[in-house]
């Protein structure tokens, strides 16, 4: 096995690493050792891991190497049945483990980024062990990745209960930006964004209820996909707002997102709100390019708070995509103004209901900002909550008809402002804090409310050397179209290699 000297095995994309493992050009043990070394480095830099089980990861790698060797000797191609065999991955700490993973809540309940869960998890484990209460089902998306051969080696940092867009976590320590640690990693899937950027995992599954996959992907210079509501089953994952929650992958490249989406999409029988549509061939879509694709640029709302530097970066993206054959069209987006707050009406109502028991028993153990967010639904009348849900249907219909009859994808910045510093977005940061926090979700939350798919794609660096990101949104279940745009943008507007890694340029 030999690799170019400048590239560690952990720098490979998921599908490239998996291919080398199958072909015998790389062993899972070598790959895992490389990932563990990078994870240790990333942890010191960003605090992206909450748990990492190196011994178990190496045992799993050794087993995978045996399987790979047997398959090669027998002439069996594992590409179709175990496409990710021997690849170590790490995910947001919000998934019930399968019990077979090396880390990532293997057999444990997730912390959900909170100390509040520690006692609850211990009590629940006792009840499950004594069969007093049924064990919650393992997370389907993680089980599907493991069935494809991937091994979860650890659990990644996150905003407490996914209630935060910056990556601050007073319980376990903030997750820091992979490029410059004094800046936020973005949240709530903060550890996923930072770990992927550091290449401590090739891909990570997070969740997105207001931007929680796309914001950390944007802040750390990697890709983040929020699929259509219902594409990915949420069985075994922490709930924040079930009417809006989606899971989503963060990765370096569109090809990895496509490969993983193919594995994890589709109903599982456990999540009643997962779609039974048959997913298309996402990898094949990547080959189509974007010739003739209509990109809509909103005249209203989404660029209202964008800084000049962000606007310039977005114009550069559009020029590149236009050069690749796309057509740029201006569109007026209907009803854009209230969408983010409609999302809040739903999310806070449901979050407060889900947290009510814990708030009654242990309110003081919540960190202050999270306690505030988890309690806000107390003051939203039930009628308002239900009306916010009911209005979603006509708003969605109008949005899709008026936007996606004119264009194939809608373009906005992911973050309309530069990545903020951690100290200016921490508790007690002053009056500017709330304005920054609002702007962070200005372009993302509307699409959570509507349930539309959206992707964050790196769009270069700002003057401080921090990532900028473009967002593209499509009609329901058009993830393949978003991945096509991502593949082209990445090819024509590549980011500097290995954000935050030892190889950063």
């Amino acid at each position, binding site marked *: 096995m030999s690799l170019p000297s400048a590239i560690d095995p952990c720098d490979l994309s998921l599908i490239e690493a998996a291919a080398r493992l199958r072909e015998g050009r790389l062993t899972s043990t070598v790959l895992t050792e490389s990932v563990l070394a990078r994870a240790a480095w990333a942890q010191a830099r960003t605090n992206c891991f909450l748990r990492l089980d190196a011994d178990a990861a190496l045992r799993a790698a050794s087993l995978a190497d045996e399987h790979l060797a047997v398959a090669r000797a027998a002439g069996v191609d594992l590409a179709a049945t175990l496409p990710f065999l021997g690849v170590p991955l790490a995910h947001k700490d919000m998934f019930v483990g399968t019990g077979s993973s090396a880390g990532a809540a293997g057999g444990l309940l997730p912390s959900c980024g909170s100390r509040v869960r520690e006692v609850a998890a211990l009590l629940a484990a006792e009840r499950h062990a004594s069969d007093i209460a049924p064990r919650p089902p393992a997370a389907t998306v993680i089980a599907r990745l493991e069935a494809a051969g991937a091994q979860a080696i650890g659990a990644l940092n996150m905003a407490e209960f996914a209630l935060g867009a910056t990556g601050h976590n007073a319980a376990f320590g903030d997750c820091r930006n992979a490029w410059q640690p004094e800046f936020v990693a973005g949240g709530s899937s903060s550890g996923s964004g930072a770990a992927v950027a550091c290449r401590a995992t090739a891909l990570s599954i997070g969740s997105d209820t207001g931007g929680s996959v796309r914001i950390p992907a944007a802040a750390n210079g990697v890709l983040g996909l929020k699929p259509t509501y219902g594409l990915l089953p949420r069985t075994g994952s922490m709930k924040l707002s079930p009417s809006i929650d989606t899971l989503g992958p963060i990765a370096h490249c569109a090809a990895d997102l496509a490969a993983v989406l193919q594995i994890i999409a589709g109903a599982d029988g456990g999540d009643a709100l997962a779609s039974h549509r048959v997913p298309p061939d996402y990898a094949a879509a990547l080959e189509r390019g974007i010739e003739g694709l209509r990109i809509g640029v909103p005249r209203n709302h989404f660029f209202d708070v964008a800084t000049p530097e962000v606007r310039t970066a977005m114009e550069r993206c559009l020029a590149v995509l236009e050069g690749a054959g796309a057509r740029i069209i201006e569109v007026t987006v209907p009803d854009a103004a209230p969408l983010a707050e409609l999302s*809040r009406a739903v999310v806070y109502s449901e979050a407060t209901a889900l947290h009510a028991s814990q708030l009654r028993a242990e309110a003081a153990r919540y960190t202050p900002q999270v306690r505030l967010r988890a309690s806000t639904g107390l*003051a939203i009348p039930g009628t308002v909550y239900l009306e916010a849900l009911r209005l979603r249907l006509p708003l969605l219909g109008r949005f899709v008809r008026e936007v996606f009859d004119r264009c194939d994808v809608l373009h906005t910045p992911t973050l309309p402002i530069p990545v903020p510093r951690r100290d200016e977005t921490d508790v007690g940061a002053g009056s500017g804090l709330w304005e920054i926090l609002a702007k962070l979700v200005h372009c993302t939350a509307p699409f959570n409310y509507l349930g539309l798919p959206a992707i964050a794609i790196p769009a270069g660096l700002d003057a401080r050397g921090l990532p900028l990101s473009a967002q593209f949104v499509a009609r329901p279940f058009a993830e393949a179209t978003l991945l096509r745009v991502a593949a082209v943008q990445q090819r024509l507007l590549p980011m500097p290699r290995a954000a935050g890694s030892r190889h950063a340029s």
Partner: protein
Amino acid sequence: MTEPGISMDVSPSATARLELGIASSPSLSPAAVRELGALADIPIDDEAMALRIAVGAGAAVMAVAAARVALQVAGALDDALLGGEPADHLATLESLAGDGSR
């Protein structure tokens, strides 16, 4: 996720209210928030927290009102008693999906 109480100055609903002629915000006092908390047996023992919850909840209420008015003006508001219900969201998404040709 999102933030309570941030929308009064920077977010869209403020603009929407002006556009739609809804000038005033609903008034919910911090004391009322604390009473609601007490009623639900969820303690809100911090005045600043109660204030932010009041502002955030008020903004959410106004956003719903703004969306309702916008849909009414556009003639796009369906019949509450005979039209769709929240549980139809996934089916609506599926019905609005394209054929994948683009």
